């Protein structure tokens, strides 16, 4: 049997990119696939993936669950559990294109579901919390079944392979979204497998990440106290759960979340204006276990917007550019030029300085 993530250490680089239309105009997945081509060398073929927002308008009120199954038995168990928990409005294969670059394909299914109201009232849970718990239950208790996307009107697509091939494999040119993120993987510590490719998604929040989290175990131990289970055996997963915890459960804004995970140094906080200083001190003190150390550049996607963020020491590269209503973010300027040759205002955000882009109200 091939070793799984966590059983072997492979000493990295990764590629991330994103594009978002502030006016909500929908773009096919082709644009973001192009961005991955000039950054080919940042990946090694052991993982590629994409998240698209606004891609399922016809099912906008249903949770779109994307699952990998290892075999027919895990699928049977998975579907049984889904039927117990949800009204399954639509169940289908995620369309793929058979190409030689992508092999060892698991069973890949997609379900559009609504939580059963009777269950919600009995468990006294809101919809989102119920979905989170069900995702965790599948990922921890069902051997060989993984939910890798669980938001509304968005979807994650990932595989083992180079990202530009993964995009072709999933026929992403057939989807249209107002925001896309992408990732090319160069696994740092572990072999690549389908569940370990980025983005990592919970509800509508997805994370693509270039880097390595030194504080992983400290972050994991803290977040596990709140019912999150790290099952995919790679560090990035924990950022997704931190974002869900801070933004959904604690109600923090994107920029406040950035001040927690990439908290400024105390010496930097000291020099801020009193009000700002007090807030930053509070965030850093209350959520000290959620400070993420080690090198990272991430793009956090969510309904209606995204946030790009570097670690505070800026040990990974990230560049931002604009053209008209579109904002482009990538590990390298070349990737932005591949999406939009005429991109303007190219700049590199400072370490810990979040770049938050919102789609105009009502435009998605």
């Amino acid at each position, binding site marked *: 049997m091939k070793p799984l993530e966590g059983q072997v250490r492979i000493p990295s680089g990764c590629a991330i990119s994103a594009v978002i239309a502030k006016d909500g105009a929908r773009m096919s997945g082709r644009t973001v696939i192009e961005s991955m081509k000039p*950054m080919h*060398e940042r990946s090694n073929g052991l993982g590629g993936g994409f998240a698209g927002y606004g891609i399922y308008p016809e099912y906008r009120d249903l949770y779109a669950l994307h699952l990998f199954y290892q075999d027919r038995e895990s699928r049977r168990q998975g579907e049984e559990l889904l039927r117990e928990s949800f009204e399954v409005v639509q169940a289908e294969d995620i369309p793929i294109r058979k190409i030689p670059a992508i092999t060892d394909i698991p069973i890949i299914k997609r379900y559009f579901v609504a939580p059963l109201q009777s269950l919600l009232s009995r468990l006294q849970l809101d919809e989102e919390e119920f979905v989170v718990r069900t995702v965790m239950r599948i990922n921890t208790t069902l051997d060989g079944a993984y939910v890798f996307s669980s938001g509304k009107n968005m979807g994650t697509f990932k595989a083992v392979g180079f990202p530009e091939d993964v995009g072709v494999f999933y026929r992403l040119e057939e989807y249209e979204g107002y925001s896309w993120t992408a990732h090319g993987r160069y696994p740092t510590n572990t072999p690549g497998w389908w569940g370990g490719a980025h983005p990592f998604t919970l509800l509508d929040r997805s994370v693509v990440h270039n880097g390595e989290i030194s504080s992983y175990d400290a972050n994991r131990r803290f977040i596990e106290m709140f019912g999150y289970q790290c099952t995919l055996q790679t560090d990035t997963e924990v950022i997704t759960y931190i974002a869900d915890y801070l933004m959904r459960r604690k109600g923090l804004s994107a920029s406040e979340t950035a001040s927690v995970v990439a908290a400024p*140094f105390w010496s*930097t906080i000291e020099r801020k204006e009193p009000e700002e200083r007090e807030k930053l001190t509070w965030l850093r003190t209350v959520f000290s276990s959620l400070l993420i150390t080690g090198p990272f550049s991430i793009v956090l996607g969510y309904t209606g917007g995204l946030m790009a963020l570097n670690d505070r*020491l800026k040990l990974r*590269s990230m560049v931002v550019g604009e053209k008209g209503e579109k904002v482009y973010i990538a590990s390298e*300027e*070349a*990737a932005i030029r591949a999406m939009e040759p005429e991109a303007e205002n*190219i700049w590199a955000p400072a370490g810990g300085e979040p770049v938050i882009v919102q789609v105009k109200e009502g435009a998605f």
Partner: protein
Amino acid sequence: MKIIEANGLDCREINEAVRQSDGVCEIRGCLGQRFIAAGAGENFRLTVRGVPGNALGAYLNGAEIYTEGNAQDAVGDTMNAGRIVVNGSIGDAAGYAMRGGMILVRGSAGYRAGIHMKAYREKLPVMVIGGRTGSFLGEYQAGGVIVVLGLHDDGKDIVGNFPCTGMHGGRLFLRSRCERIRFPKQVHTHLASDAEKQELQTYLTPFCEAFGYSLETLLDADYTVVTPDSKNPYRQMYVAN
């Protein structure tokens, strides 16, 4: 002059085409190909159009490179001799461990410009940045000269946080009084003397020639000179000694 269309070529093919030329080349439509002109010697003169990838001119050994727009990370990584002129801005870690030659940038530089630059006997690496730089300028600098001119117009400080962290050799010239900038304890700062400004001319003249600035205007300002306290550089790193 040989024209190399970069579209569809990877870095090996581009560098091979450069090697096969008589030395004077123009690379067009560059899009992220790394290591352009890596190790190239004195006979080469390159113009790059488009966006060159990381480590442009790595290990450069005498060649001259002119880049029309921006360049990405690690420009002139470990370069030994030659000149890299960037008519835009550059990414992080420019001149990483360079020990000779010159890097001239019209715009700004990212984080860690001049990290671990070093000098050796007759070798003196020089980097001149027209705009501002990110944090950790001159990190672990061991030798050479970095000049930052602050000609940017985005209102930000001439240098980000934590400049000169771990600096133990070389010098920095910042065209500013640097009143807001916090330097670490192991470096000294002073305003440039007339003699130092005289020396500065040597570095600024090629910058002015490359980008059309007036030497008199650039010199007519206060420069903060930063040097390491080399009397006892490791004092209190582990224990007081």
